[in-house]
């Protein structure tokens, strides 16, 4: 068996990487870090993605959008696989993705690094800088937001509310 042409794989990869997240459309799936691999099985595209949150309903939409994008790029019956391990972390959001979030008024997550599961009753994480005015005088409105991956904040300087992609 001869391997597929590199250009063909590149084309499938480019199509898959161009798909945007349905809830954070300023991010491509590649920038979000959920696109784990794009391969060719003969001439069939096989894409592996990992869910952000276990219950995230956007996953189905991501899969549908990937199929559409790949079909448009000449891969009519692409297979979309899911992988759970290793679990997605916000550390996989690319620099480009963080810049895009910030430009759209969403504070990007801080590095997670080594996970800690100690109870954060008193040692709360530092409040994020306001993505609009840059002030660090902000407060948490709620650790849960309009989508599974965001928390709600408010800036005390410019008085604007903003979302933040919370560390996971």
């Amino acid at each position, binding site marked *: 068996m001869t391997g597929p042409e590199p250009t063909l794989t590149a084309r499938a990869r480019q199509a898959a990487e161009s798909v945007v997240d349905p809830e954070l459309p300023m991010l491509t799936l590649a920038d979000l870090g959920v696109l784990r691999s794009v391969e060719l099985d003969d001439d069939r595209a096989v894409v592996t993605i990992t869910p952000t949150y276990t219950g*995230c309903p956007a996953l189905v*939409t991501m899969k549908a959008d990937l199929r559409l994008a790949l079909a448009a790029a000449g891969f009519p019956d692409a297979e979309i696989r*899911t992988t759970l391990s290793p679990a997605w*972390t916000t550390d996989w959001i690319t620099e480009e993705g963080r810049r895009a979030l910030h430009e759209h008024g969403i504070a990007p997550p801080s590095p997670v690094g080594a996970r800690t599961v100690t109870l954060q*009753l008193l040692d709360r994480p530092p409040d994020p800088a306001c993505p609009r005015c840059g002030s660090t005088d902000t407060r948490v409105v709620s650790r849960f937001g309009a989508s599974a991956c965001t928390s709600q904040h408010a800036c005390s300087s410019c008085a604007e509310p903003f979302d933040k992609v919370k560390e996971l």
Partner: protein
Amino acid sequence: MTDHENAYSGLVEADSDARWAFGTGFDDPLAGIDASVPPGIDGGRLAAYCLVLGDDSLVMAQRLIQWCTRAPELEEEVALANVALDLLGQTRLLYARAAAADPSSVPALPDGSPVPAEDRLAFFRDPAEFRCVHLVELPDTDFATAIVRLFAFAAWRLALLEALEGSVDPVLAAVAAKAVKEVHYHRDYAARWLVTLAGGTDESRRRTLDAIASTWPYLDELGRADDVSSALLPSGGSADPRAVWSSTRAVLDQVLAAAGVPEPKGAPAGNGDSAGAGPGGRDGRHTEWLEPLLAEMQELARAHPAGRW
């Protein structure tokens, strides 16, 4: 491709299912994942254990979403619904894992029924077939009971999931590793609210103490060895409920101390001693509150066993 003159055209495009709203399309949450049962593990026992874990999270999620339109603040409603969504996500994976490990654990429906395994397990089992603990069945009578119960549940669930990261079943271990990160947020949320309510007004403190007093007796069941966990324990598939309870207890004590709340009278021993304890949720014996909860949750699906959603 899209007819911009017609706002509804996008809804009916054959090649864009799930485009118009999230959550309208479902597929097997384990699609593409190797769901074979590892050697040395009994598929039936693994399935039974995954059902136990999924029943806890499903019923807890259902209780939490009952706060929609009723929470004291919009932000809290969003928070409780988010926690419920995470738990529902865990449930889907756990039910799918159970179905893959032992297809006979899935209720049979008439031939040709399009209802997937996870939905059959959620909607087509009777209360006595559920194995959830009584803690998740309790109705919330006010925000304090919701917070106290969620805190106890999340502290226990987190300890359990952390232990399950070491399960010899790679699927269960992966589900647990992913869920740990989410439940960490649930526990923090509820713990902070508990401390806030206990240190708030006289009224909020009174309600919090009442909630702790009424919830704590149900924690006894959590540290008890049960048949389903015990059956899988020697092969390394499950977590030891007694060890999990011990870790949970430390966190409960820490938060009660931070809230300035004395240890409730009759606090559970949690020594795994089930002598004298009656049958519990793990035996299929439930409180009076489970049946109405399931009846409401299951009614629509049962009315349309051949329905597509």
